């Protein structure tokens, strides 16, 4: 399919607002994008951070952030979408569109490319970015290469005439196919140009290089690599309202939010969409901002949205540390995640959905006070130690019991489970009757019978009942249960042994030995 590709060079830097200074984007300590000014100083792609900084000391470095790039690229996409609604965004900085319809409307491919370049450059220039490049060819892949070659040639557009794509591609090196391993191999086989690769018999290429080779072969012949995934641009899912005069009453803001929420619902419903994740943003006259994501199991109704606004503002205004110093001047709602609206099914005779409504309202209110992750439920996840066996799931996040919970987990300490589990084990010393420290041998046996446990950390024990006194006599013990976990993984590898311990004061504890240090991991309170 004849395709036009708009390429905005160095887009991540344009998005960060750094396109006109020496700057680079780093990923895993390597330069992935650098600005023209930085290139002039000798910074190159795939350089290490240290090399790049050595080449250009005043280099500004930013981390890769796909979200930032994508958000700011929306402006370019909407400029392109004013020409045709069928725009596909490949990655931030590159978008493509089928050229057949628009070129007929705008009087040919040349005029279309010129108009498009004008519209996009208007957006990019506002961010001090370099002008965009446009390529038109018979396949999206060739169009992308054409756009890049426009950058090299210094023209704004390269248009490959219809039917000429294979010929145009033939002169390029095989590395341009974008498959490094394949290009490496082809070079060693003496095939250096795309044209030479395209001239090979398809069946032979398939036999030698497999499906990946066949795909590259299609590209080399100037055929479509894939059909563009086209859909209407998503509706604008943000509704905001600026308030004429600052408002410092939560109720008033909530009243205004009712209108905003209704408007957002009206934008969603014609598309058959419902929102399950909502971003509520508010700003004050003094430019203080508060934004928070809200998530719900069930799609938000407009009333639920207003509730979220109210709770968030109540939480903000009543907080001691960072209460706003002026009235609210801006409220903005953004639908973050949308799902097809399948309606709400209420159970017969009320049912669990109705019953938990009271609970849900209370929880959402607490989330407004303490934050999304402060309240939730526990899920059993399976594991050996008491800490790993339970996972805390914030309210609103999907609550799924993983299959591992039902696995046998050899080495797990049998039931009953300890009622108090400390986040960090309380460091102790376990001593035998002779005063020697007790260890665990390679065969999983205690080196001596434990007789005494002594708490190492000074001060009072944490809440609960780790032995109140610093030294306690052991009257019973069982174990050890050795657990050697994730030995195949250098970072996750842990070797531990656990011991049940009964002390003279009647309290029972679960001790864990790791790297030669004993700690009270949990208490059977």
């Amino acid at each position, binding site marked *: 399919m004849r395709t036009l590709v708009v390429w905005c060079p160095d887009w991540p830097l344009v998005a960060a607002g750094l396109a006109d200074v020496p700057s680079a984007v780093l990923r895993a300590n390597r330069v992935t994008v650098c600005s023209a000014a930085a290139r002039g100083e000798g910074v190159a792609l795939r350089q290490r951070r240290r090399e790049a900084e050595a080449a250009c000391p005043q280099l500004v470095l930013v981390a890769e952030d796909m979200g930032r790039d994508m958000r700011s690229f929306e402006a370019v996409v909407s400029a392109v979408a004013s020409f045709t609604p069928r725009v596909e965004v490949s990655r931030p900085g590159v978008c493509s569109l089928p050229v057949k319809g628009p070129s007929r409307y705008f009087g040919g491919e040349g005029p279309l490319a010129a108009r498009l370049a004008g519209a996009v450059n208007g957006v990019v220039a506002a961010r001090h970015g370099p002008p965009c490049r446009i390529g038109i060819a018979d396949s999206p892949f060739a169009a992308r290469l054409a756009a890049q070659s426009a950058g090299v040639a210094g023209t704004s557009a390269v248009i490959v005439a219809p039917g000429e794509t294979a010929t145009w591609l033939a002169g390029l090196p095989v590395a341009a196919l974008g498959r490094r391993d394949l290009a490496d191999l082809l070079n060693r086989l003496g095939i250096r140009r795309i044209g030479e690769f395209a001239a090979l018999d398809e069946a032979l290429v398939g036999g030698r290089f497999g499906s990946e080779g066949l795909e590259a072969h299609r590209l080399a012949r100037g055929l479509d690599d894939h059909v563009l995934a086209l859909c209407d641009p998503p509706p604008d899912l943000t509704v905001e309202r600026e308030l004429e005069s600052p408002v410092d009453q939560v109720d008033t803001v909530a009243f205004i939010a009712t209108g905003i929420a209704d408007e957002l619902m009206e934008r969603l419903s014609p598309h058959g969409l419902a929102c399950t994740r909502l971003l509520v943003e508010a700003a004050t006259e003094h430019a203080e901002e508060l934004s928070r994501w809200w998530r719900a199991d069930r799609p938000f109704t407009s009333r639920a949205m207003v509730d979220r606004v109210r709770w968030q503002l109540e939480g903000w205004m009543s907080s001691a540390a960072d209460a706003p110093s002026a009235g609210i001047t801006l409220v903005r709602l953004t639908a973050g995640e949308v799902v097809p609206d399948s309606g709400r099914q209420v159970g017969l005779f009320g049912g669990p959905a109705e019953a938990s409504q009271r609970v849900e309202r209370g929880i959402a209110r*607490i989330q407004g006070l303490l934050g999304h992750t402060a309240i939730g439920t526990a899920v059993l996840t399976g594991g050996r130690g008491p800490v790993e066996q339970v996972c805390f799931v914030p309210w609103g996040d999907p609550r799924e019991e993983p299959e591992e919970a039902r696995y046998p987990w050899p080495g797990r300490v049998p039931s*009953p489970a300890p009622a108090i589990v400390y986040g960090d084990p309380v460091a102790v010393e376990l001593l035998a009757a002779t005063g020697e420290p007790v260890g665990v041998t390679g065969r999983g046996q205690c080196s001596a019978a434990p007789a005494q446990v002594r708490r190492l950390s000074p001060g009072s024990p944490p809440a609960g009942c780790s032995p109140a006194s610093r030294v306690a006599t052991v009257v019973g013990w*069982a174990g050890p249960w050795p657990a050697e976990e994730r030995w195949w993984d250098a970072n996750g590898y842990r070797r531990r042994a656990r011991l049940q311990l009964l002390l003279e004061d009647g309290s029972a504890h679960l001790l864990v030995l790791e790297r030669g240090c004993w700690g009270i991991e949990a208490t059977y309170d």
Partner: protein
Amino acid sequence: MTATAPVEVAAPAGRTTLAGAAAPAGRVTPAGRTELHRLGAKVRPTSFAGEHLLPVTPALQAILPAGGLQRGSTVVVDSRQSSGATTLAFELLAGPSVGGYWCAVGGFSEMGALAAAERGIDLARLVIVPFLGSPDRWLQVLATLFDSVDAVLFAPRAAVRQSDARRLAARSRDRGSVLIVLDHQGHWSGPSDLRCTVTGSQWSGLSRGHGLLASRRYELEVSGRGAAARPRRAPLQLPA
């Protein structure tokens, strides 16, 4: 199963006969009508306070004076004398949870949820707030929990002011939810309708180098107000 299952009890039948209403059949005199209204107002609370009970597990049924957890009451589990209070508090919460009610745990970040599940608590209906937040927030958070669930387990981390404790107890009474205070270190000085003190506990099953922790025998002392005014002592075996 619904979250709230208020128990409605009809007014005792014998007390509804009255002289004013003994008019000829089908006719009520104006005087009789006012008398009826007066009596109607008198018997309007159609459920007895004693019927507002949350269910408890069979093991606790014999021990608690009312045979259940009174809605709106404050229960303090005191373990200053001996260990074992946390399991007992889970056991108290297990009854309502099994009965389909929603429960919550506030300010108890060290809670062993697995132990709670073993006592029978349904983790899907147990709302957990590990940290209650800053000193100016925790009262509000707990009060909101009373609004939304039927039983709240609260483990104070620091001494609770008497005035705050009274406000909490009043809130739970107002909302008809049960406040269970798990008091490890004597932080709760507020009112309590029921006080379960663990006076002794003994593990069985574990000896020197062999066996396993199997079961624990509790000595409980239950005291409180009203029917529980006279302290009762009772043994309890957990897990049974």
